[in-house]
């Protein structure tokens, strides 16, 4: 629209430009985003929001408007899933669940932090998000525990089957920072 090279700073609401996938995904999880009255109980509950750019209320607002920037920003990844907002919402909205829905959608579009990709690789390789190492094996022995716990750490074939079946991440779409 604009002939200048500056992007239009005003968000224009136009029919057909809403990201309906966001709205649909939330609806499928039983989350009625339009029932939010923007009271801010969620933001006020949020430890993360005191230290990061996450403003849960705004995330909910943007999601309700189908604003896809909410998926591209790292804000939704600042939630520690403490469930304070979820338990306190006066409209009884399952806010933390909504954030997970948005993260799932962001992941499906390839917006996954490189460290998170690494964790998935470690899980695939070791069966654990935090794997065993030599030092701990030694400590385990000293404490009278088996050096390797009887978990997936001991079952490589089953690890492989799991890795092939679960958590196939979408290709990188730009690391969310």
């Amino acid at each position, binding site marked *: 629209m604009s002939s200048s090279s500056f992007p239009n700073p005003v968000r224009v609401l136009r029919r057909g430009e809403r990201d309906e996938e966001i709205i649909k995904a939330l609806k499928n999880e039983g989350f009625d985003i339009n029932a939010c009255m923007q009271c801010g109980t969620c933001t006020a509950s949020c*430890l*993360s929001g*005191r*230290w*990061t750019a996450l403003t849960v209320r705004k995330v909910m607002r943007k999601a309700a408007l189908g604003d896809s920037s909410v998926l591209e920003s*790292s804000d939704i*990844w*600042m*939630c*520690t*899933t*403490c*469930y*304070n907002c*979820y*338990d306190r919402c006066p409209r009884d909205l*399952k806010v*933390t669940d909504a954030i*997970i*829905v948005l*993260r*799932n959608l962001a*992941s499906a579009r390839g917006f*996954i*932090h490189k*460290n*998170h990709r690494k*964790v*998935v690789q470690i*899980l695939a390789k070791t*069966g*654990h*998000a*935090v*794997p*065993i*190492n030599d030092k*701990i094996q030694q*400590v*385990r022995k000293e*404490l*009278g*525990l088996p050096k390797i*716990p*009887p*978990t*997936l750490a*001991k*079952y490589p074939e*089953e*690890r492989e*089957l*799991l890795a092939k*079946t*679960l*958590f196939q*991440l979408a290709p990188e779409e730009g690391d969310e920072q």
Partner: protein
Amino acid sequence: MNTGYSFFLGCIMPNRYPAIESATRFVLERLGINVQEMERAGCCPAPGVFRSFNKPDWMVAAARNIAIAEANGSPLLTVCNGCFGTLFDVNHALKHDEELRKKVNEKLEKLGYHVKADGEVRHIAQVLGFDIGPSGIQQYLKRKVKLKAAIHYGCHFLRPFHLKQIDDPEDPRILEDYFEALGVESLNYRGRLLCCGAGGGVKGAHAEESMKMLLEKMEGIAESGAEAILDICPFCHLQFDGGQKILNEKYGTDFHIPVIHISQLTAFCMGENEIGMKYQVIAPEFRLEVRNPD
């Protein structure tokens, strides 16, 4: 009394804080609770990280762990809030939603498992704090501690409240009541019910932000004059233990407060001397003081 538990190890306890594992095994043995191993169990998987990538897959992986306990024929026991968050919530969802159970089983059967979701998922803090209880534990104690401590609940033990229904998440007493029965003087401190800042995948991808949240938590604890932090979750444990060192190194603080898991403290009071404090990052020299009988 139940005949035993399927002991779910998870990741951080066996692979970072094995002393919590040995202490838990010691406590369960002293309580006469039979421990069944969960052969082939994996990551719970973590409710913050893995659920965020793909919730259906997260459910399948969790259901696999639940199915292993079901095959054992005993309720699943965890010592970690993260594992509890995943396994309890998934078990609850599967129990109450037949459609979902069918869908999860379709994928789970490809892995060679089947979940019924007719059993229970329990946290060690429930078993000690509620089933055995502050008075019930007395007969098992060899000694009590002299310790002023800041108790940290973590998040997924009490929330979401409508699922967990263990204690009021806005003013819980279950851990205070239990730890006080072991001789602990529990301190009220600023941010007592705050998150440690590790969960949700934040620690993994946004370490600095995670440390800022820990800093707020630690300032409240330090202000209270606590001699130790008592927790019920290896991930919170990792955040407090390793995190204090990072804060001291990167942010110029001087925190030096030992972190003790509920299993470690209980094991000590039941007579176990080696609760693994020496393997921890912060205050490896710390030794618990025994309270003289009044």
